[in-house]
């Protein structure tokens, strides 16, 4: 079985504050946004619950961009993509 491609992930400061020691930049293997969230949660238990609600979906005021495009959990992440997780201005 082929491994998912490596992607680069940037996390927002407000999220880092909830997980002491967690770096802002990550390189991990996933081919969807949901896969990225699960990979983050495996390394930082509880992070998925901060980013996603139970429907499941990204929380209303969490914005994820794959490159320049706003994404959902189902969005495909191409190999080598830059994925940014942001706290939306609407949630502050």
């Amino acid at each position, binding site marked *: 079985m082929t491994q998912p491609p490596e992607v680069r992930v940037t996390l927002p400061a*407000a999220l880092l504050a*909830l997980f002491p020691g967690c770096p802002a930049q990550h390189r991990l293997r996933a081919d969807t946004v949901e896969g990225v969230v699960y990979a983050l949660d495996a390394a930082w238990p*509880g992070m998925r*619950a*901060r980013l996603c609600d*139970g*429907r499941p*979906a990204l929380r*209303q005021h969490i914005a994820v961009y794959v490159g320049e495009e706003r994404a959902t959990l189902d969005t495909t992440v191409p190999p080598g993509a830059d994925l940014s997780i942001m706290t*939306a201005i609407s949630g502050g």
Partner: protein
Amino acid sequence: MATQVYILLGTRKGAFVLESDRDRTDWSLRGPFCDAWPINHVITDPRTGAIHAAGGNAWFGPAVWTSRDLGATWTHASEGMTYGEGEEPIVAAWSLATSGDRLYAGVQPAGLFASNDGGKGWEHVAGLRAHPSREKWTPGAGGLILHSLVPHPTDENQIWVAISAAGVFHTADGGATWAPRNTGTRCDFLPEGQRYPEFGQCVHCLVMAAGRPDLLYQQNHCGMYRSADGGRNWQSVEDGLPSSFGFPAAVHPRDPSTLYLFPLNGAIEGRYVPEGKAAVWRTRDGGESWQAMRQGLPQRDAYFGVLRQAMATDTLEPAGVYAGTNTGSLYASADEGETWTEIAQHLPPIHSVETLVRA
């Protein structure tokens, strides 16, 4: 070790802890904790000594924060705090209570969760939302929230909850099934002839008298009530109050007939203290008569209120009484409400007040 008194505050911008010796005259303040999240309720678990703080953040959802060192360090968790796939997301945790080894959390939209591991993992107490009335529960101004959690002190199978605006519900089987307990409480906001429904009441706060699990009091959107039979029947005890409208109620730690209220001027009149003069109202006879306690509270130009979870007593003798305002002031009485002192100001709006006394 000398007795220390702690006041636990939930505010719009985090949790705070105040601390004093038993004289309760010199307070120090620590906080804000919980990353300045909106915190709706902060309690201690008498079994473990842990502090738990219930809240919800617009970005990151609901969580219960826990500190096992009186606030020095905190963790947060919400694993399992969900109604499941396709269901409405949970916005915030609103209320906390312990019963035996279990920690309970009431949430918005209204429902109940339980934790058997001190707040790390949660499971839905699904029986409450399985009640046939649930489709007709409607939110109050603060949302559809389960704000009052009242476990029976000796029977872990019994819990009373209050939901705005669904009313009071009781379980006698550990949460599997629930029954409305609203007979005698009215809904002035419904058409004439429909004002005493089985459920749908806008309860603002539900409390249990000390040592009397059958004796409950509730401040309602529409009146002040007492029940001597565990909520099966309610009697109005609002005669003598300046208003039937208010949010919090706080019981005396030992006397089941003593209760403290903070009446406001009315639901449509601005929801601040009547005539701009603040008073805590006390009964010593279970609501048959009421006295205004004003000494030390502002008596002119006061336009604040006290929210539903923001009044509490401590267990000392004489009992301390505490009221946190929605304008960020904390008033304290060390003499059962006779005299008051502002012991903190300029805080965020205070959502909840609880106390802890440690010998």
